[in-house]
């Protein structure tokens, strides 16, 4: 008995070894820029394509996760950073990194044209804003009508026991959207009232999600009636035909900027700078404007469906430096109050 087929084994082995080695030996003439990002997956493609078209010698390699996870990862890698640029995370997070001395100062070409409120005003700026991310409620029209409840218009409406178990919200430890809400409630209502509000809200929350857009997506499918989320996801889902009502609570909206900065110690500083230069161009801003109603450059006029034109006036006054300095304390307190909550009842 001879197994003829076994004689092809060495050939197969060689082929496999080549296959294993292939990814490593892929020719890399372009500078590959590792960009840590909290941007939504459906935005990444357009941003990458536009940047690479404008800068053919540089290639973006995204590492995407929720805002909090990206920041935790950057902090963990502080001694030996793997990222070259961090893009599309909240300005609060970048300020936190800056306090740790982890950002490389750089003033991109065209910085002066960026709205002063959306950039680091120091002479040696370490970050620059891209657009404004603001909180919003996604309410399932179908489920709300089935329940016969009125459309909530204020944050405090969410503590009505009628909504018990029907609300989801992003976990502020992992989601930038979640953190900007918590931070805004604390600043808007004061710490004591803010935590009291969150205690009451917590009684109605079915689950805290990892991502900022999951609550809105769950409202879109009616899985949970209300999702605390952000306006981009709401507008996108309504466009796709989801039966959602977008609510911007009357007390005011928590918000943050999506921003970009260079990681200190990157060996690819020149390429990193080209990405920051591109990030403040009108072309880049035009792309942001397809997703967000307020962008960094004043001359770019966003037109996002379902978002009212007066969005800017609905934003609460927010102190990002305070939020960055107190982030650890706020998250520890949040975790102490709500992490232990078990749904097993």
């Amino acid at each position, binding site marked *: 008995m001879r197994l003829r087929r076994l004689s092809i084994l060495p050939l197969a082995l060689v082929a496999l070894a080549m296959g*294993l080695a292939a990814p490593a030996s892929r020719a890399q003439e372009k500078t590959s820029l590792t960009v840590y990002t909290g941007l939504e997956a459906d935005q990444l493609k357009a941003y990458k394509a536009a940047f690479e078209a404008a800068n053919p010698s540089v290639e973006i390699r995204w590492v995407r996760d929720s805002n909090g996870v990206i920041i*935790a990862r950057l902090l963990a890698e502080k001694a030996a950073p793997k990222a070259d640029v961090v893009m599309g995370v909240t300005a609060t997070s970048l300020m936190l990194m800056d306090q740790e001395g982890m950002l490389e100062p750089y003033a991109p070409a065209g910085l002066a044209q960026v709205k002063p409120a959306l950039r680091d005003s120091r002479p040696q700026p370490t970050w620059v804003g891209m657009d404004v991310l603001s909180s919003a409620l996604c309410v399932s029209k179908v489920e709300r009508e089935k329940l016969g409840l009125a459309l909530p218009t204020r944050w405090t409406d969410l503590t009505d026991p009628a909504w018990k178990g029907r609300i989801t919200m992003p976990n502020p430890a992992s989601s930038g959207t979640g953190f900007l809400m918590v931070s805004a409630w604390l600043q808007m209502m004061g710490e004591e009232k803010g935590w009291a509000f969150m205690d009451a809200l917590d009684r109605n929350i*079915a*689950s805290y*999600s990892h991502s900022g857009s999951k609550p809105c*997506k769950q409202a879109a499918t*009616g899985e949970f009636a209300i999702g605390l989320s952000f306006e981009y996801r709401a507008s996108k889902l309504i466009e796709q035909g989801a039966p959602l009502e977008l609510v911007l609570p009357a007390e005011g909206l928590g918000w943050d900027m999506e921003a970009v900065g260079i990681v200190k110690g990157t060996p690819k500083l020149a390429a990193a700078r080209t990405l920051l230069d591109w990030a403040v161009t009108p072309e880049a801003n035009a792309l942001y404007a397809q997703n967000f109603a307020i962008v960094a450059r004043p001359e770019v006029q966003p037109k996002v469906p379902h978002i009212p034109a007066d969005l800017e006036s609905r934003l609460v006054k927010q102190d990002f430096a305070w939020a960055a300095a107190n982030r650890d304390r706020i998250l520890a307190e949040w975790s102490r109050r709500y992490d232990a*909550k078990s749904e097993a009842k």
Partner: protein
Amino acid sequence: MPQALYRPRLAGLTRATISLLAITPSLLFLLLALALPLAALLSQALHDRAGHFVGLANLRDYLANPSLLAALGNSLILSLVSAGITVTLAFLYAYGLTRTRMPGRGLFALIAQLPLLAPSLLPGIALIYLFGNQGILKGALGGHSIYGPIGIVLGEVFWTFPHALLILTAALSLADARLYEAARALKAGPWRRFATITLPSVRPGLISAFVAVFAMVITDFGVPKVIGGQMPLLSTDIYRQVIGQQNFQRGAVVALLLLLPALLAFLIDRAMAARPGAALGGKAVALVAERNRAVDTVFLIFCAAVAGCLLLIPVTALFASLVRLWPYDLTLDLWHYQFDMADSSGWEAYGNSVKLAAFTALCGTLVIFPGAWLVVKGRAAAAMRQGIHALALLPLAVPGLVLGLGYVFFLADPDNPLRMLQGTLALLVICTIAHYYSVPHLSAMTALRRLDPELEEAGRALKVSPAVTLRRVTLPLTLPVVLDMASYLFLSALTTVSAVVFLYDPDTSLAALAVLAMDDAGDTAPAAAMAMLIFATGAVARIGWALATAGLRRRTARWQTRKDG
């Protein structure tokens, strides 16, 4: 032994050297890919973030936190409940397959294999569509939420069912008809016969199945991640500590806690396996199930119901992946299969998964089979062979999450020359082989032990080298088992999430990890689509492999019968 007298001493030495050389790669693989990463993990758990030795202080800190203690309690209770339900169902199902004459036994056995094709995230996703707030069968839960213990237990029962069934079918197939005849002659009724013959004979199988399911559930994080709601569990906690908060020390401590119950389960199982008496004597007469209309009908109904539930999960996930927007827009199309809009790695991740599965199957078989051959047939370096066997069984007790975390610590050491493997597909292949090492090792050993040692003696008498005996005789005889090893490794690599979740980088993301990421982002339908793609790939690969190797299997089978006859 007489041959030893006229065997030249030099040849004996050379043979010893050869086996030593041959044994080193297997031992080296197990040391590097398994022992050292685990040692790195243990050491990490005993140090603080700055790297100072703190002993058990990390553990004390962890245990001082009541919510984390709750996680330990929840994990234990849910694993016990899931194991109890799975083993009961699988026992009755296996009884139907082996001890009755109900029709459709082959089909039922086939359907029971389906959960092997899916990552554990799939049942979680399907359960949302079945019993979630918009679920098709929501009413069946009587107002209870699927998010939490109910969902976790249902998902785990589905996912672990085939594993328990495999063990119990094997246990029930071993039966001595003479015992039943004797009992009948003594006028023992069917219940008495069941209680005094059947149950005692399958007790080791029952315990083994229970322990296996318990260990799988307590270490799985796929099901609870998707459908666990806010329920704290050890397995999801380790994920949250490491991925969410990048607190690796804390993760290492939870990993230790996770290792304990799995290790305990493993030791119980080994102790059971070592107990004599389970095997059949040489004079045993195989039991042939008798036709009994009432019993056959009852088991037919039961097995059909279980098989229906098992089928419901993938069918629901398939439906979920095709519907545009459940439950409002029921247009059926392939929209959710365009992963670009949901997950940045999408189809590329799928390609990586197929590559990982193929490499793991091939390289894994090439590493594991020689190791097992040396343990069984080797004659030199007994201590090293013992070492291989002990290490080869270790992965049974080591959860994937723990192993993966061990790799992180092992490769974080700047002096480690293997550092360059970080984030590569090669690393994922190595880790996956180590993670799934035990089962193929054990099945190869069983197959090799079944071969008569006279074959080797004959080879020696004919003065051919052991390599020739291996190639000409041993390998062809064990070929079906070798082919099954490859198939097992392929499916395991395709569906795994636990160990690799800490090790991939954006260029080497995997399909099952994309399912996890998409579900995390709320893209449940695309997650279902990707999970179904894995399911379909597993099914096609399995059928294709069976067809492609049918010729080989037939030829070896023919050869064997000719030899015997």
